[in-house]
């Protein structure tokens, strides 16, 4: 029996998953590493590219510093906005709570570069508000481009993450803790800093890391609004696409540096959050109070104000999409119509199909693999499965641009050529999004007592039947909720896809990007409106599927 058990279905699945990760993740990453220390012409071992990056006068180290500056600033700003928002939202009665929650989630769901792009359309050189203010007051607004613009775009997009994390943590704070602290004379703002913040610290740290990592790896925002303010994902892209001459090996070297840095930050965060780790479970959730008249006004102003500030620019894109434009697409004319939609329709159709085909395919693979991996990790702990677990988590700390370039290096030659196909995008998406879905699947499975599966076995069900008929149906609700959120990140994926797409595999999000870069604003807005529609529909489906109204990210 020992032997028979060693070779059951799950062992084959373990081997299959391990093989897939070695081929599609480890191999490209190793190739990336090799290319980073290999001379482009002679193939000899060299540290030239790393030297070049850190060169005092002509190097690119400053882009790293830029990235850090922007990411730290964005983390600080989102925490300053998100934590008080979550606190007020949890402590006080707010009109339209559910609507507000949905809007906050929507703010975070747009494609990363679209936020930046909409700010450019509003406050850029030829932006709508810029022009208005100039016409009315004759004042020239300060430039939106560069550090300030990136910070604005990142903060308005990422504060919902902090809000959701901290709101989740506050849900686990027992009301009696707050009452106890009031009893001992610690109230109001003092209690906020002395009790509430420390109680939410693990979530605040986790949210902070999330924001930091996303800011650091973001390619779309600095590309749209950064202009001269270069961050390293943009450099990787430029070295690859070659606006100023390409160099794959140099791009590889930058990618390696980026991974090392994110890995260090990740480990630091792990270390610090372990020190803060504790578990809470609220028997009595916080009772929301009604604030006084003035307080109430400012609470609503703050909460709704933030939503308006971060979502209004996107609505502006929708409005803009109906403007009549000149034939080239970049001069606005009087009147409104669907003409932009008509113009982009020939491109839109295939792009929508590609979105469903590529993102949908990736989603299905992600769900299946995540369920299998989580089963192996939770129910069948052994060395091989631990390795699979670790491998599936590695992409969590790898910026999308790095995955993109690794994919190209792994699969543009040799026996398995995938560049230009839809598969390479599917693979990149799977790798990138797997960590999140695996984590949520593991959490779901850990809630299911193993005795349920044992009961099935004792009733004569085979291993396959037990998994198929019992485990999957019990997991599916929890996993589906996470999967729908994953779908949103897939259809708005840019940083890796932008290096991997071809004219045959262009998705809706990439189409918007291409139109934006091409300068045909109104048409880009039309395409982006369709994309926004998709995210809203997804969110509606999510709220139907997830039985409770809570949205987790």
């Amino acid at each position: 029996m020992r032997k028979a058990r060693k070779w059951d279905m799950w062992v084959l699945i373990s081997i299959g998953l391990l093989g897939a990760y070695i081929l599609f993740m480890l191999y490209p990453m190793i190739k990336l590493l090799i290319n980073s220390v290999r001379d482009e012409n002679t193939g000899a071992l060299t540290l030239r590219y790393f030297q070049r990056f850190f060169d005092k006068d002509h190097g690119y180290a400053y882009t790293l510093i830029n990235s850090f500056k922007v990411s730290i600033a964005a983390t600080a700003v989102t925490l300053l906005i998100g934590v008080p928002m979550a606190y007020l939202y949890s402590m006080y009665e707010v009109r339209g709570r559910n609507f507000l929650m949905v809007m906050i989630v929507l703010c975070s769901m747009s494609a990363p570069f679209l936020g930046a792009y909409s700010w450019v359309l509003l406050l850029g050189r030829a932006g709508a508000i810029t022009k208005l203010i100039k016409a009315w007051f004759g004042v020239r607004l300060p430039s939106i481009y560069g550090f300030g613009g990136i910070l604005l775009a990142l903060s308005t997009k990422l504060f919902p993450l902090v809000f959701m994390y901290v709101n989740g943590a506050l849900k686990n704070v027992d009301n009696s803790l707050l009452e106890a602290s009031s009893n001992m004379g610690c109230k109001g703002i003092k209690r906020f800093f002395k009790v509430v913040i420390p109680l939410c610290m693990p979530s605040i740290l986790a949210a902070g890391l999330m924001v930091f990592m996303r800011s650091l790896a973001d390619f779309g925002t600095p590309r749209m609004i950064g202009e001269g303010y270069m961050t390293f994902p943009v450099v990787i892209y430029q070295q690859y696409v070659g606006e100023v001459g390409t160099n794959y090996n140099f791009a590889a070297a930058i990618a390696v540096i980026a991974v090392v840095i994110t890995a260090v930050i990740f480990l630091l965060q792990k270390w610090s959050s372990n020190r803060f780790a504790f578990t809470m479970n609220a028997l009595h959730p916080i009772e929301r109070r009604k604030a006084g008249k003035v307080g109430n006004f400012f609470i609503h102003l703050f909460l709704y104000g933030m939503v308006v500030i971060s979502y209004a620019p996107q609505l502006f894109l929708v409005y803009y999409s109906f403007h009549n434009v000149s034939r080239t697409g970049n001069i606005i004319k009087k009147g409104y119509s669907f003409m932009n939609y008509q113009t982009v329709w020939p491109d839109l159709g295939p792009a929508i199909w590609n979105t469903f085909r590529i993102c949908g395919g990736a989603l299905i693979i992600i769900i299946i693999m995540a369920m299998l991996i989580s089963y192996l990790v939770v129910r069948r702990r052994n060395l091989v499965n631990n390795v699979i677990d670790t491998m599936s988590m590695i992409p969590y700390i790898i910026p999308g641009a790095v995955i993109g370039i690794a994919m190209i290096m792994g699969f543009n030659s040799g026996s398995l050529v995938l560049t230009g196909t839809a598969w390479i995008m599917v693979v990149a998406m799977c790798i990138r999004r797997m960590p999140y879905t695996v984590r949520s699947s593991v959490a779901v499975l850990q809630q299911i007592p193993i005795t349920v599966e044992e009961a099935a076995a004792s009733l004569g069900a085979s291993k396959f039947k037990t998994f198929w008929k019992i485990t999957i149906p019990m997991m599916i609700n929890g996993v589906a909720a996470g999967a729908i959120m994953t779908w949103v990140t897939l259809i708005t994926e840019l940083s890796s896809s932008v290096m991997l797409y071809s004219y045959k595999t262009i998705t809706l999000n990439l189409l918007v990007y291409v139109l934006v870069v091409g300068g045909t604003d109104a048409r880009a807005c039309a395409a982006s409106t369709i994309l926004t529609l998709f995210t809203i529909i997804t969110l509606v489906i999510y709220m139907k599927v997830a039985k409770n109204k809570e949205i987790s990210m």
Partner: protein
Amino acid sequence: MNVEIKINHALKKYGENVIIPDLSVDIKPGEFFTLLGPSGCGKTTLLRMIAGFNSIEGGDFYFGDRRINDLDPSKRNIGMVFQNYAIFPHLTVKKNVAFGLQNRKLPKDKIETQTEKFLNMMKIKEYQDRLPDRLSGGQQQRVALARALAIEPDVLLMDEPLSNLDAKLRVEMREVIKEIQNELGITTVYVTHDQEEAMAVSDRIAVMSAGVIQQIGTPKMLYQRPANLFVSTFIGRTNVLEKKLVRSGNGLAVDFGGYQVPMNNLSGEAVEGQTVQASVRPEEFVITDKGDVGVEGKVEFSTFLGLNTHYLVRLASGERVEIIQESRIDDILEKGSTVRMTVKGEKINIFTQDGSKSLIA
């Protein structure tokens, strides 16, 4: 049905940690057999070895003459009832009960009648189309039992099935379990840490401690003639007093500080002058009014519980004992009052000084 379970020299290890060193037991066909012991004694581990959910590091397990060591759990034909019920939450009550039958690939009408039979037997027919989370704990337990029994297993295994129920329901359900088991005559292995529950349902009980069976016997035997000091203290309440054996007439007696209780049922190993552990249950002391017979003590505490009254009495030798007497109509003995007690010699148990062995023949 009616299968004998035979376990020879079972060994269970987790790494280097030995949970069950060497355990053998025969469970008779149709018997209601209970594994009883404190938590961590290995009783659930043993049950899960029988079920096939735990690996077996050594020894042989037989159902009848079929060796099951290497048999997958799904092929052992066991019905298992879990502590947390382990009901499939996404299936209706009826589908839960039918699940095992469907795995047998039986014809549809056979599944239908069999499911019906057990739904009726467990009185859950009216809930058959509900999802389990709409049922109370007792109802869920009935579903779990119906599901386990519907496949007509050779062996029914139950892992603390009543521990999640409230006290009243626990008593009700244990009667249901006992009744059904009697009716079907199915060999049953039952795990619990609750000795009262074990006594109420079992034909025989194995008392376990540290992976070793201390004694196997009927409830009456375990209570009245425990094999060692552990069993005597684990089953029911008792007062353990270190005493000496003295000569009394032709035989030996236990010396309670001047008051000697003659023992005519001691084994050959008992010798004069030997230090022993006397286990005297609270009801085996009798408070007496007769002047100078018995052992003297002072009442320190009394609790009136209706049928009985409990006293804590400090003996002259300094030991404190618990005594249970049927409540009397006159006043309860006051705190501080002096009493004399005799001991029912034929009921008490005598163990060697280390408690490992009974000295009763």
